[in-house]
């Protein structure tokens, strides 16, 4: 083999590969929910400080994504959905991902402490710890409830956004957390239903693998039912309003209908139409969360004009 072919075969990472390590699609959810948490908080934040804080929360989320890819490289190599990621495809080494993840974790927490307050910074550090150590290293490979408890990590960003503005925690920020926390299991279990071989091949104890697919369908319905009161409690809280309530009525009706349809089906039916209902439920779940937080944003904007919220009725 000549030097030339050696260079041809080397997979030198491009800048985009390092961006991929930060899971940009997950970051978009983090950015949006953290921004809503910050905007709906009662204390105003300087626009530049708010912008920087959201950027740093997103960076912290990205850092935990890189650490997740570092630790999960072995199962990412096996799963169809993840084998194209930078580490399994050989473009980035595991050590590079670890270094990037640790470096960005430290930088994002330190900078958030300086930009906003140290409570928000500690909260971001705890979120990274929870996602990487509690979820990725411990629960993900241990229990079929991995998604339920691990979902907390994805639910913290609006609380961090709220903490940036207020320096603390309140009922409203806990309700925003609870909405994402209860939404996560149906969202991921729907994905697990139509990504059928992936988790079993990787040996990840997803509910579909340990308890079967019929049980997973039942669990989706149960968690969707439990999600409804949380959505309405948020709508009637001080950060909710008529727009959030309207969104809650429509979105929860659609979500319940989807979960019921999933519950009523068996595997043969699902196989026959290529998991059409499960896939549309998964897409609906994404819209559910974005629309819910979008409605909170609309109510907050209306409140600033003196017409939103429950006070003016």
């Amino acid at each position, binding site marked *: 083999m*000549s*030097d*030339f072919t050696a*260079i041809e075969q*080397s997979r*030198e*990472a*491009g*800048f*985009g590969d*390092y961006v991929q390590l930060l899971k940009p699609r997950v970051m978009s959810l983090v950015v949006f929910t953290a921004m809503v948490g910050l905007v709906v908080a009662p*204390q*105003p*934040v*300087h626009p*530049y*400080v708010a912008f*920087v804080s959201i*950027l740093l929360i997103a960076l912290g989320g990205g850092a935990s994504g890189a650490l997740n890819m570092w630790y999960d490289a072995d199962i990412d190599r096996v799963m169809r959905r993840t084998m194209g990621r930078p580490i399994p495809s050989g473009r980035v080494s595991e050590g590079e991902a670890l270094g990037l993840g640790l470096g960005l974790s430290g930088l994002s927490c330190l*900078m958030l*402490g*300086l*930009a*906003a*307050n*140290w*409570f928000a910074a500690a909260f971001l550090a705890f979120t990274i710890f929870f996602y990487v150590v509690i979820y990725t290293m411990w629960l993900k490979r241990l229990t079929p409830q991995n998604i339920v408890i691990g979902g907390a990590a994805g639910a913290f960003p609006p609380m961090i956004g709220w*903490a*940036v*503005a*207020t*320096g*603390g925690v309140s009922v409203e920020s806990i309700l925003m957390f609870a909405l994402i926390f209860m939404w996560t299991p149906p969202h991921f279990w729907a994905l697990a239903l139509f990504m059928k071989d992936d988790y079993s091949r990787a040996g990840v104890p997803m509910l579909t693998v340990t308890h079967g697919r019929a049980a997973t369908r039942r669990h989706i319905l149960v968690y969707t039912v439990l999600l409804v009161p949380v959505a309405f409690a948020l709508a009637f809280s001080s950060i909710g309003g008529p727009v959030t309530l309207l969104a809650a009525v429509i979105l929860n009706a659609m979500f319940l209908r989807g979960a019921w349809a999933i519950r009523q089906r068996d595997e043969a039916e699902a196989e026959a139409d290529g998991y059409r209902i499960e896939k549309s439920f998964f897409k609906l779940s994404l819209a559910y969360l974005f629309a819910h937080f979008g409605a909170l944003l609309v109510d907050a904007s209306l409140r600033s004009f003196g017409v939103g919220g429950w006070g003016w009725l």
Partner: protein
Amino acid sequence: MALNREHDLHRRRLGRNMGLGLVLGALVLMIFGLSIVKMSRLEEGKLPASQETSQ
């Protein structure tokens, strides 16, 4: 066979270095902007309660 100067490997390295340069530049600007905002708010005495603990 001679190596082409414009080999894909060089393009990737250039892209990576440019990207890192831009990120570091953005970081410097971000910290500079934060310093300006913090100092001007300190002068105005407008720092909110949540941020007083970090000073």
